[in-house]
Every structure is written in structure tokens, then in C-alpha cells.
């Protein structure tokens, strides 16, 4: 039987029957060959020296008689001896005669159609049954098989070739004619079976398996090396110096919440209860030391009323009331001072947090049209409102509570805190 497989380089092999044209041309060449190839012609002995260049079909036949592998330098991927060795090893394992020709096209075939196919027919006529893989420099490859087992199929070779091509690195990897030939011979070694991927990968990893990529000119590659090195050195120096200078000049940041941003609330400090009681005791003693005239003066009466209001709120257990007692105590203290220094202004606490002390500045509160009296610190940078912790709602600014303190701003917004506190606590009672 005759099996013919042809493959244009870069496409999957197609099974073809020898055409009538092929047969006619084959017969003509067979006759020529019969005349040229004398029976019993001495085969060229194999040696280390490369065989002479085979420029004609006859010369190729002569060389194939001596050696079934013919590789010319133009098809040898840079090392014909290595290519020949690789193919010879593969051919030796095949159970049938295998011939491989990777060569320049003989002049006599240049004007023929499908020269590889036609010359394979001629080789078979001259050399007998077997597998013939022919790939010319200027054309497509052809694999013809005569007198081989039915199960012989070269499709696995081309499937493996396409798979290796897809796995290969590079922009447009293209298998070499040598790689294709090796896989075709391997398919002949194991007829009907798929090529082991380990074998294909081993061949695909060889430098001759794919056509080389375009190399960058040496001057360009050297310039690229210098540019890349300069970029890295300069870039690292500049980046490093910027970061170093920035870090070295950065002012140290105080650790803790207050350094990063103002707190969202200010709580009533621990120990305030003791301090307020102590201050109230002191004010009472000052009030008791006043004369009758002083006690009946307006300032003396305001001091007495403030002390009375403070006494009503100091022990309620409410944090805001405790702060109120502190403010009322300070009001009383100031009013006693005013008995001897009427020019002193009446006590007005910081609206933001009365515990900051007396107001000495004003600030336009966020979202308000009122300039509220505040301490000097809150005048520079508004702090958080005095807040009280609610069980379910978390921290709540005192100004948001329903207390007399919210309405009066602890006396920052009104001049009659004492009266309003006394009225508030009278109503409650």
C-alpha cells in the first residue's frame, strides 16, 4: 500500500493520494534515474568529512544510499553535524527504512509543481519502500510512505508540532524544518501512538527547534544596557535622597490621640467633686466674713444666691450639675471680689467647656451665627464640647442635653445663671 502525507510548513499535514501528474513525472524521472544509477554503484562511505554538496536528484540519491539522512548547511540550523546526528539517532530507532532530506532544491525541480512530493516518488523508485521526508529550502515539506504498516499516521507529529509552537516563547515562534523532520521520524518510530510530551518538550527545548528571533544590533543593546543602568542608579539616588531629606526634616509627632486630631468630646475629669466642694467651702468662709452692709449690697446678694444655687446642685450625682456648682462657686467668688473692685467684670465661663475657666475671647461656632465667649485656647482652636456619657447614645455634648446648663451655656450666654438655676431647681422640687 502507499500512504502519502504532505504538509506545508506551518499547517497540519493533509493526507493525499499521489496525483496522476506525480505519477507521470515520477516515471520520467525514474527512467532517468535508472540510467544514471548503475546497479551496484559503490556507496559513499560514511566518514567525519561532510559529504560533497548534492546539487542534483542523482547526487542526492547517491548520498541517501550511503546515509539515509541528508542535511545541507542552509537547512541545518547552524550546525549540520548536530542536525545529522539528531536525525540519525531518530531514524535508527524506526522499524522501517526512513529517509530524511533537508536541502536546497535541485535546479532541475525548480520549475515543477510540488517538487518535494515529486522527488520523494523518485527517491522511492530508486531506493525502494520506506518513509521519505523531504523539505527544500525554497518550498514546502512532504512526507511519503510506501510499504509501511496501515496504522502509520503522521498526524500526531504535526499535532505535537503545533502544541510545541503554542507553548514556545518569543513573539512569533516558528518551528524549524529540522524540528518538524525529527517529529515526523518519531511518529514513524511509534506508529499509531501519540508522541510522548516529554520527548516533544525535550526536542522543543533545543536551540535548533525554532527559528531564531531577530537580534537587536549590538550597539543598540549596549546602549540599552547603559541607559537602564543610569536610570536605575539616578532614580534610586534621587528617590533615596528625597525620602531621606523628607524624613530627616520632618518634625516629630507627639504620640497619642490628641496629637493627630482634636478629640470628639471632653469628659468631666475625675476628682472634680472634691475640688468643687473645697472651693465652695472657701467661698462660704469668705461670704461669712462679710459685714452686714456688704452682704446686703447687690454683689453680696448675688454671691449669696450663687452659693445657694451651687449648694442645690453640687450633690445631685449628675456630672453636669457638678460642673454647674463649680461655675456658680466661681461666680460667687468673683462677686465677693467685686465688693472691693467694682470694675472687675462679672464671671463668664468658656462656652465650649466651662472647666477651661473664664472666657477671654469669642469664637463663631460651627453652624451658628452667634459669637460665643470662650477661653483663649478655644479662641485659637475650637476644642470639643464638654460632654456626658449616656448609656445608650454614647458621648453627648452638654449643649445637646435638656438641662438648664444647655440653655444658659453655664452662664456664657446669659447674665442670670443663678436665677435660672434656682428657678429650675424650685420647679423640680
Amino acid at each position, binding site marked *: 500500500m502507499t500512504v502519502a502525507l504532505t504538509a506545508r510548513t506551518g499547517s497540519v499535514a493533509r493526507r493525499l493520494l499521489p496525483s496522476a501528474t506525480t505519477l507521470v513525472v515520477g516515471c520520467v524521472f525514474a527512467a532517468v534515474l535508472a540510467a544514471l544509477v548503475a546497479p551496484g554503484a559503490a556507496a559513499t562511505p560514511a566518514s567525519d568529512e561532510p559529504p560533497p554538496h548534492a546539487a542534483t536528484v542523482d547526487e542526492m540519491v547517491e548520498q541517501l544510499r550511503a546515509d539515509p539522512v541528508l542535511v545541507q548547511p542552509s537547512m541545518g540550523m547552524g550546525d549540520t553535524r548536530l542536525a545529522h546526528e539528531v536525525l540519525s539517532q531518530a531514524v535508527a530507532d524506526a522499524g522501517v527504512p526512513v529517509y530524511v532530506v533537508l536541502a536546497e532544491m535541485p535546479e532541475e525541480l525548480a520549475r515543477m509543481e510540488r517538487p518535494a512530493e515529486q522527488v520523494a516518488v523518485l527517491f522511492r523508485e530508486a531506493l525502494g519502500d520506506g518513509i521519505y521526508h523531504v523539505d527544500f529550502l525554497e518550498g514546502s515539506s512532504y512526507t511519503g510512505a510506501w510499504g509501511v504498516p496501515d496504522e502509520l499516521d503522521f498526524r500526531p507529529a504535526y499535532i505535537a508540532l503545533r502544541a510545541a509552537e503554542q507553548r514556545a516563547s518569543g513573539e512569533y515562534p516558528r518551528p524549524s524544518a529540522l524540528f518538524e523532520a525529527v517529529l515526523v521520524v518519531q511518529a514513524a518510530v511509534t506508529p499509531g501512538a501519540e508522541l510522548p510530551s516529554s520527548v516533544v518538550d525535550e526536542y522543543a527545548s533545543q536551540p535548533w527547534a525554532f527559528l531564531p528571533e531577530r537580534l537587536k544590533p549590538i550597539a543598540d543593546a549596549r546602549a540599552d544596557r*547603559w541607559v537602564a543602568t543610569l536610570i536605575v542608579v539616578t532614580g534610586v539616588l534621587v528617590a533615596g535622597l*528625597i*525620602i*531621606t531629606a523628607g524624613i530627616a526634616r520632618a518634625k516629630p509627632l507627639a504620640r497619642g490621640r490628641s496629637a493627630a486630631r482634636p478629640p470628639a468630646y471632653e469628659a468631666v475629669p475625675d476628682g472634680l467633686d472634691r475640688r468643687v466642694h473645697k472651693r465652695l467651702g472657701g467661698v462660704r468662709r469668705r461670704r461669712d466674713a462679710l459685714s452686714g452692709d456688704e452682704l446686703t449690697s447687690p454683689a453680696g446678694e448675688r454671691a449669696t444666691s450663687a452659693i445657694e444655687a451651687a449648694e442645690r446642685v453640687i450633690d445631685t450625682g449628675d456630672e453636669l450639675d457638678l460642673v454647674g456648682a463649680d461655675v456658680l462657686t466661681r461666680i460667687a467668688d468673683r462677686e465677693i471680689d467685686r465688693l472691693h473692685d467694682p470694675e472687675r467684670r462679672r464671671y463668664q465661663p468658656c462656652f465650649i467647656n466651662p472647666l477651661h475657666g473664664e472666657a477671654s475671647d469669642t469664637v463663631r461656632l460651627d453652624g451658628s451665627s452667634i459669637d460665643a465667649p470662650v477661653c483663649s485656647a478655644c479662641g485659637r482652636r475650637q476644642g470639643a464640647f464638654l460632654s456626658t456619657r449616656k448609656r445608650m447614645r454614647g458621648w453627648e455634648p452638654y449643649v445637646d442635653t435638656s438641662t438648664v446648663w444647655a440653655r444658659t451655656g453655664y452662664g456664657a450666654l446669659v447674665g442670670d445663671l443663678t436665677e435660672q438655676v434656682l428657678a429650675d431647681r424650685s420647679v423640680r422640687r
Partner: protein
Amino acid sequence: MRKMIIGTVATLVCAVLGGAAAWGVMSSNLPDETATTERARTAADALGESNVYVDPGLDGAFTDDELARIEAAAASSDPEVFVVVWPESRQAGYRSSSEVLRQIGLRLARPGVYFQVSPGSALDSVDVGIDGERFSVYETPDDEWSSRRETTLLLDKIEENDGRNYTLGESTESSDWGGTAGVVSAGLLLGLFGGGLVGGVGLAGWFLARRRRAAR
């Protein structure tokens, strides 16, 4: 001051290490000029005895008389000309004709102009070991091979080459970056911009991380 010293020293060390790494990586991309394919070896060995090498596969492409004229013109040309006549191939272990001509020139170690003549392909040439005026020999090939036409073309090009200004030695000029000044300025400029960008982003990141850490 201590931070400044530590930062500067660390920067210098990183710059040296980074530069060495970049040099190493880019060196691996340099074409291996010591590798020579079989065809180039054969042609170079032959060109040691004659200025024209004709591959056995193209024996007869030129007549003896034509070869003698080409040989005489090539040998007397300044810079010297070497001519390789063979079928062009992509299955011979190199990608382009300029690659294999350069391999031949480097193996032969004779400065000059190396021509490739291939039937059906454009005449091509490459300068090896010389740095001279731009010289192009590209000509669209005719469909039909004519040794007479090719000889005339080749002799014209050799005559055009003869007497052009050149100096011995390879040009270091890059088609991408230009000469040494271009290479240095490109490297410094890109490094300055890139380093400035990376430094600014790095410093901003450091400040943000520092603030976040301090806020905890």
C-alpha cells in the same frame, strides 16, 4: 543629622546594588557575538583566501569572468569589500543576512563591507569593524536571476563604496538613543523623573503611615 547620614549611605548602597542588577539583567540581553553559525564559519574561512565566496549550491551563478571582475574590485576597494554568494536561508541558525554577515566579519577579523548576494533576494551589506558614512546597497531583486545585471549592480556599489570616509572601529551610536551624549542624557533624565516620582510617592506614603501610626 544621624538620619541624614543613614539615609544617604542606604541610598548609595541601593544605587550601587540596583545599578549592578540592571547591568547584569541587560547584559543577558546582549547578542552573543562569539557564536558563529556553520555557514558563517565556512564563508569566513573561504574569504580568508579570496574576497568572493560562492556557496556550492550556487556554483555557476556567476561566470568566471564576472567573478574575477568582482574579486578585483572588492579587493582594491577602500574600505575593503567581501562578497558572499549563497541562497538566503532562515533555516541556517540566524535570523537575518546582517546577522550572518556580521558573524563572518567578526570571525574573519578583517574590517570592511560585507555583501550578501542571493538569487531572488535583495542585495544586502553590513559594515564590520569600521565606522563610516551611511552606505546602503538595498536594491529590489528582479524576478529572473541575471548574473550580468547582478555583476553590474555589485560593481557599481563597490565603486560607490570605494573612497567613502570611514574610521576603523565599531560605531557605538544607537539607533534608539543616539551617541554617548544621547545615552547619558536619556539615562539621567529618565532617572531624574522616575526617581523624583518614586521619591515623592514614597515620602507621601511615609508621612501618611506616620500620621496613621501616631493617631492610634
